[in-house]
């Protein structure tokens, strides 16, 4: 479509815009829209940024932002209303070593996750993992669940997220999460480095949560390195662990956490 930039000139009775006679399209007699260029630049800029909110993200590849905007537009076109859309997970780390894109949709509306997933995947070609929640459930989860805290410690959202939440420990929920880390004990040899990292990460997020410390990627990795005496977190991700030494500490920590959790469940039930 032909677009011409021209200046408005002052006339005696009416102002006018001169455009070159030698042009493609915009024929004489045709109706056109006159719009301020500065306004249009502002509009384009805001479409490019799509008013995203970044949490604990120092740097991210622009191509990923383009993909996220595509995802947001697919969701907006397929939903009547939503409270927020949040992108989280390994996709937000620098580089392209992620397996999928984790999307949290906050909405009271019932969502057909599979259909939405298919649409996003056909548009972006990337596997997505959609979690649908109400805002209330997210707020509750953030206050009681270390997984939610670590998940949202680094994220990009469509609307602002308010994180001021009071932490409340629900030991039965922690017991449930802790069981997820149990397979390390019997499947060390068969697990990949990334799988070992995920199980340990889960364990460590529960530890930090119980100690009332911040639960985010940096604090979790720091604690894993410190406790298992690693040089770098990639030692674990690249499967370079010393089995005997590692499992000894892992089992010990698992048992400690399990004892604390079960003891508190016991005390809780006695109080009732």
């Amino acid at each position, binding site marked *: 479509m032909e677009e011409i930039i021209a200046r408005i000139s002052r006339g005696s009775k009416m102002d006018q815009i001169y455009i070159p006679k030698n042009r493609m399209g915009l024929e004489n007699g045709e109706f056109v829209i006159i719009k301020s260029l500065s306004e249009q630049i502002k509009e384009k800029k805001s479409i490019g940024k799509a008013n995203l909110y970044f949490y604990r993200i120092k740097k991210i590849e622009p191509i990923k932002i383009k993909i996220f905007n595509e995802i947001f537009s697919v969701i907006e076109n397929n939903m009547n209303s939503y409270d927020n859309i949040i992108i989280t997970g390994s996709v937000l780390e620098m580089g392209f070593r992620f397996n999928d894109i984790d999307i949290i949709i906050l909405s009271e509306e019932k969502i057909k996750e599979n259909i939405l997933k298919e649409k996003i995947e056909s548009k972006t070609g990337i596997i997505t993992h959609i979690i649908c929640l109400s805002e209330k*459930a997210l707020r*509750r989860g953030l206050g009681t669940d270390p997984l939610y805290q670590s998940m949202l410690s680094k994220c990009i959202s469509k609307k602002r997220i308010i994180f001021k939440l009071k932490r409340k420990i629900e030991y*039965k*929920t922690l*017991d*449930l999460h802790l*069981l*997820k880390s*149990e*397979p390390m004990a*019997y*499947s060390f*040899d*068969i697990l990949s480095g990334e799988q070992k990292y995920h199980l340990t990460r889960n364990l460590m997020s529960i530890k930090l949560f119980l100690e009332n410390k911040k639960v985010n990627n940096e604090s979790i990795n720091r604690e894993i390195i410190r406790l298992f005496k690693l040089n770098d977190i990639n030692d674990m991700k690249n499967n370079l662990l010393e089995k005997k030494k590692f499992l000894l500490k892992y089992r010990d920590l698992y048992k400690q956490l399990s004892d604390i959790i*079960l*003891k508190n*469940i*016991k*005390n*809780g*039930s*006695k109080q009732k």
Partner: protein
Amino acid sequence: MVQNRNKLIILLVGNISNSIIHIILEQSVNKPELTDKYRKESISSFEIAKKYREKMNPLAEFFPQNDIEYIKKRIIIKVTAELRRRIASGYKNINLSLVEREVNRAMKILKISS
């Protein structure tokens, strides 16, 4: 090969056990937010167990009787121990009599036994 099969059996037992623990815990609570989480966890462990089963022979037939007995025994011991720890910690309404039924059901679905 034999060693590999033993490792797969350990993984199979671990994941079936985890799935059954969550099924029984799910039935013991009446908090919807917890039951959903237990259900999801039990499904995900069972799906992993399915993948390990697919790597083991005989694929289309049931396991030999000694394997069936060993797997069943290991699962029952593991599930019961985990559930007993929770009962001792104050978990209510955990029905241990469901363990064997759930183990048989899982082994049937996974074509380990008839």
